[in-house]
């Protein structure tokens, strides 16, 4: 997967001095650095998922925005999109597990939600294993020790 464009083949010098970009009013985040692959915790501090990908839409709802219109992040994605980030390809939109951005309350070392994880679709496997396996083993629903 190692790919690179030789610096000398680009139509501008490699070590040009670039100006600082106009500074926007809001908080600046780099998606890969600050959002992708961060832990998502719910309102009770319980881990929910890891941010596997982000959903981006045009402000007019366009699914494929370009520079001609503003694009915004509308949801955190999880589930099958992880497989495609690892192995390539793209899952059908119907199989994405979405957490709407409006549920997000804080972006820090973890991404915090204002809702309970149990209420979200993404945690169905946890609930299934709890209800069918772990919760049925004696002692599974008690505090240890």
């Amino acid at each position, binding site marked *: *997967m*190692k*790919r*690179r*464009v*030789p*610096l000398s*083949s*680009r*139509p*501008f010098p*490699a*070590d040009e001095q*670039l*100006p600082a*970009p106009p500074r*926007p*009013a*809001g*908080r*600046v*985040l*780099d*998606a*890969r*650095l600050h*959002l*992708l692959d961060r832990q998502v915790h719910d309102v009770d501090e319980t881990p929910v998922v890891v941010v596997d*990908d*982000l*959903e*981006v*839409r045009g*402000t007019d709802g366009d*699914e*494929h*925005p*370009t*520079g*001609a219109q*503003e*694009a*915004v*992040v*509308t949801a955190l*994605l999880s589930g099958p*999109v992880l497989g*495609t*980030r690892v192995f390539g390809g*793209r899952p059908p939109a119907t199989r*994405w597990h979405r957490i*709407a*951005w*409006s*549920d*997000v*309350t*804080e*972006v820090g070392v973890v991404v915090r939600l*204002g809702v309970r994880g149990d209420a979200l679709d993404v945690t169905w496997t946890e609930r299934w294993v709890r209800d069918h396996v772990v919760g049925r083993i004696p002692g599974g629903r008690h505090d240890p020790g």
Partner: protein
Amino acid sequence: MILGDLLDAHVRDDQGRRLGYVVDVRLVLDRPASGLLAVPRVHGLLVSPRTSSSFLGYERRDVRAPALLARWLRRRHRGTFLVLWPDVERLGDDEVVLRTGYRRWSPVLDA
């Protein structure tokens, strides 16, 4: 679209010349909130001549230790620039094409 569509995509100028790859997407939290937090707007794309590794966080101005590691990673990503979202002409399959007269900005992220 999903962000994964943009990451690692080829970046070309309007004449089809290869400029590099999208290594990160810069967001700004400045759109009116539908919940508690402002909505992130796509501010621009970080374009590096390499795709095989990330900066590991060393694109931030205040992160510079251990010095050897920081210097090596920054050197590997020499020639990285920021291009603002309005300069994106169109998105193809694993490809981003910039419009004529696009501008390159410094990629450094201030804390």
